[in-house]
């Protein structure tokens, strides 16, 4: 063994800070995502409480704008994205029969940059005010002329750092899925969740650079006095809208495609049937991703781009309905002739289908530009995107979490509580958002901190707020379920749902550090199901038993992210006048930025100069662990 050497095994907190194991990183993503989802949820509750009655004064107008900005930003970038990454990390290496992702070190780096970016953004609440220009941060409102606190700086710098993590994660999954599939797993034998994650990663690769550029330009305008969006000096605010939505529209497909993947795993499992129209599902996913880059200006129909642009973007947007429709009918016909079991995971997956269709049809309605002149920036739009993001994505995430929980933690979530979670969340969801369609049509524009009485808005807003509380109960029940389940002993079977179809169900729950003792041989779509149907108890190995090469744990990704975090703070306050002369000196002379960058680049240097070849698990140890698992 050329590189065999003993590795320092950490325990406790150090284990989590240094881990490069995709399964542990998945749990980290889940914890961090859950935490930020909680923040975003509290913000949502405050928004709904403020709007419960006309002329309410629970929060001030300024605070309300900070709440809506942080709710949107937090939920999209820090709430649902990491939970998606949690599922991707937990499941994809297992589904493709790999021992880890392609770049375990980079995987950890992606998580820590995301976390520190998110922390930086949320620090704004206690450091002089949160961003207040909406999650879209339209200029000139977001420029330093009109948004005078550091709020939007926290937004640009925080998202820049968090976005770095997402981009890193996306590249990692692309490389993993392209290069690390088990022998026999051709692209057209990949499970649907792997497929959608693959496409999502590709979209991240192309979409995130746009927001990176946009955030750089906006930071330069705000912090360094550049003029990209400053009209009096030749800048153009409409430019920001294009840059933002060239990223922003693909982003919503980046979010929803993995949910499509989850649904495509859960429904077949609990219908005991293979996915109907697998190849058309793959084709539809690719088509949605492609069209997703062609429709950004439908967010700008009222900006005044002219009839030709509006007509083209209208039609392109409507076309997305076609591949999406294919998916919906494929799911319905997967269940047709099956034997449907109503587990919590499947309840969420089944609930997803009609809910998402409702969000989809309003999407087509919005695509019609002349009608959108009325819908745009009203509660109709608020209803629409919550139907697709909550009714679609969040339902999908809940389905995925209930489904893969036993694989991640070795314990099945309590089914009774799970079902209560579903009913509270689903009923609350429809109560909250269905009425908002009508609020929009009746003339209630979005992002208003309160409204006059006598506009017929009062009852519907009250209903909406009541619904929001039912959703909150649903989320709290889920949290409660996590704790109840964690208190129970581990030890579920490899295939706790008994009808698992893909490779992850062929190995112990949770899997050992190295996932597969021997890399399996894949003999078709739904590889594990195929073996079960052939009467085999486990997968046929594709390699002899041998020593397994493992990556070493390392603290460097964490340290690098701390460095970026420090540099980010330094940049934001680089021209701040502090009361304390020492603080002014270190910030105004860029010393803080330099310290941060030295930490980050120093860590990169360390990583480059000192090779770490990892370590090996020998076959004898494998046998032991095999018995234990």
């Amino acid at each position, binding site marked *: 063994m050329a590189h065999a050497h003993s590795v320092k095994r950490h325990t406790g907190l150090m284990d989590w800070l240094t881990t490069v194991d995709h399964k542990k990183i998945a749990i980290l993503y889940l914890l961090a995502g859950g935490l930020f989802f909680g923040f975003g949820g509290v913000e949502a509750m405050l928004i709904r409480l403020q709007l419960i009655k006309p002329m309410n004064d629970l929060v001030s*107008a*300024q605070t309300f*704008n900070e709440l809506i900005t942080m709710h949107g930003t937090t939920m999209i970038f820090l709430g649902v994205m990491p939970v998606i990454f949690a599922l991707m990390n937990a499941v994809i290496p297992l589904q493709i029969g790999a021992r880890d992702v392609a770049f375990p070190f980079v995987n950890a780096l992606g998580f820590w940059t995301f976390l520190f970016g998110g922390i930086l953004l949320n620090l704004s609440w206690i450091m002089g005010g949160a961003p207040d*220009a909406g999650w879209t941060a*339209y200029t*000139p*409102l977001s420029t330093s002329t*009109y948004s005078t606190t550091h709020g939007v700086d926290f937004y640009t710098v925080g998202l820049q750092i968090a976005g770095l993590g997402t981009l890193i994660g996306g590249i990692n999954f692309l490389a993993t899925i392209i290069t690390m599939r088990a022998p026999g797993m051709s692209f057209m034998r990949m499970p649907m969740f792997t497929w959608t994650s693959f496409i999502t990663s590709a979209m991240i690769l192309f979409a995130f650079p746009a927001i990176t550029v946009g955030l750089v330009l906006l930071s330069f305008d705000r912090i360094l006095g550049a003029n990209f969006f400053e*009209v009096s000096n030749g800048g*153009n*605010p409409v430019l920001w809208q294009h840059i933002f939505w060239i990223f922003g529209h693909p982003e919503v497909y980046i979010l929803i495609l993995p949910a499509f993947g989850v649904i495509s795993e859960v429904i077949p499992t609990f*219908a005991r*049937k*293979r996915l*109907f129209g*697998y190849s058309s599902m793959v084709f539809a996913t690719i088509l949605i991703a492609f069209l997703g880059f062609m429709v950004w200006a439908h967010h700008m129909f*009222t*900006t*005044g781009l002219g*009839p030709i642009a509006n*007509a083209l973007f*209208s*039609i392109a947007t*409507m076309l997305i*309905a*076609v591949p999406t*429709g*294919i998916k919906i009918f494929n799911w319905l016909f997967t*269940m*047709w*002739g099956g034997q*449907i*079991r109503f587990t919590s995971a499947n309840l969420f997956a*089944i609930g997803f*289908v*009609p809910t998402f*269709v409702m969000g989809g*049809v309003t999407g*087509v*309605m919005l695509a*019609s*530009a*002349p*009608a959108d*002149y*009325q819908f*745009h*920036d009203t509660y109709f739009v608020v209803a629409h995107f919550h139907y697709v993001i909550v009714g679609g994505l969040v339902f999908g995430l809940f389905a995925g979490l209930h489904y893969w929980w036993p694989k991640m933690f070795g314990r099945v979530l309590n089914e009774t509580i799970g079902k209560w979670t579903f009913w509270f969340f689903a009923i609350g969801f429809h109560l909250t958002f269905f009425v908002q369609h*009508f609020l929009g049509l*009746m*003339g209630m*524009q*979005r992002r*208003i*901190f*309160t409204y*006059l009485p*006598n*506009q*017929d808005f009062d009852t519907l807003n009250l209903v909406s707020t009541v619904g929001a509380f039912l959703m909150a109960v649903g989320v709290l029940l889920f949290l409660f379920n996590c704790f109840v389940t964690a208190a129970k002993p581990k030890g579920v079977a490899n295939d706790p749902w008994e009808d698992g179809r893909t490779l992850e169900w062929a190995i112990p729950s949770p899997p050992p550090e190295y996932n597969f003792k021997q890399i399996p041989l894949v003999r078709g779509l739904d590889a594990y199901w195929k073996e079960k149907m052939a009467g085999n108890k486990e997968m046929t190995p594709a390699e002899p038993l041998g020593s397994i090469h493992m990556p070493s744990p390392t603290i460097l990704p964490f340290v690098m992210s701390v460095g970026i975090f420090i540099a980010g703070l330094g940049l934001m306050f680089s021209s701040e006048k502090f009361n304390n002369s020492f603080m002014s000196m270190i910030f105004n002379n860029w010393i803080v930025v330099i310290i941060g960058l030295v930490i980050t680049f120093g860590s990169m240097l360390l990583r480059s100069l000192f090779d770490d070849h990892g370590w090996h698990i020998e076959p004898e140890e494998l046998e032991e662990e095999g018995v234990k698992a």
Partner: protein
Amino acid sequence: MCFQRSLRKWKKWGRSMMKRWQAVKRLLPLLAVFSLLLAGCGREDLSVLRPQGPVAQEQLGLMKLAISIMIVVLVIVFAIAAYVLVKFRRRKGQNGVPEQVEGNFKLEIIWTVIPLVLVIILAVPTVQQIFAFGDDHYNDKDAVQVKVTSHQYWWEFEYPQYGVKTAQTLVIPTGKKIAFELKTADVLHSFWVPSLSGKMDTNPDGTINRFSFSADKEGVYRGKCAELCGPSHGFMEFKVKAVNGDSFDNWVTAMKAPAVLPEDPALAEAFKKQCLSCHAVGDQGGPVGPNLTGIGSRESVAGILLNEGQDGGKPVKENLKEWLMDPQAVKPGNKMPNPKDLGLTDEQIDGIADYLANYKLNY
């Protein structure tokens, strides 16, 4: 025989009643939804669903087409889903493995082609309307030109053909095409009168927008800012007052009449010094703040404090006083200095409020 026949009759009646009852039961939720819809269409002067002009009318027409298509789609999907969920639930003791269907080429073609056809049905009128609304009517001979300039958080309306400027209440003649040129003086806003037309953003110089609408009936319509523009975004409301052609001409004449100043010379002096440095009345004053000519006959103060005659409105003087005593309390973040900070006493504020409340235009 007779008995049997009557029994059969009874059974038949019973069955038909059952059927009818089931039909009613099925219709009940639908009825509930419809009644909700009918009752909840919103205010005539505000709701998209109750259009008061041809542009809003056509846009609602397109929405109705879209909604009809979408309801068909929803009904189909929901019906299949309901059938599948009832019919194919796993029953006790069901252990056989269901047939693993790979797909069905014919079905997949059907549910690709039908949505495509539905999309085309919606796309054709969409494109037609996009180009119809995209027409620039600004230089039409019989169009009334209005230059709209949005400010944090008020609306300025200039009528270049008449040399008149006003604020907060846009007065228009019925039946005529009103051609707008929209721009902003600061951040982005969006000009929206739901019952008359969809919205259009007000951008800075260089990306100025034009569009037009008209009102069929006389009346006051509510307008709103639809683009987040700061803390008081929700309070950036305005009114569109449609009057007949003669009244409109009278209004223009009244607007162009020389300014009426407070009778008390000391008050007039204070008003000129402190208020007219930004605001204008008639031919006097500055362009920084909203024009105050005839503010006493407008529907609201500061766009958000509704006057008598509006739902829940208060006397105009009361509203003016509320505003002048503390503008920030009414509209957080607005740019008007507090009159007290300018050195105006409570008495003077009361006098100015009284003067402005009685500054009415006859038209």
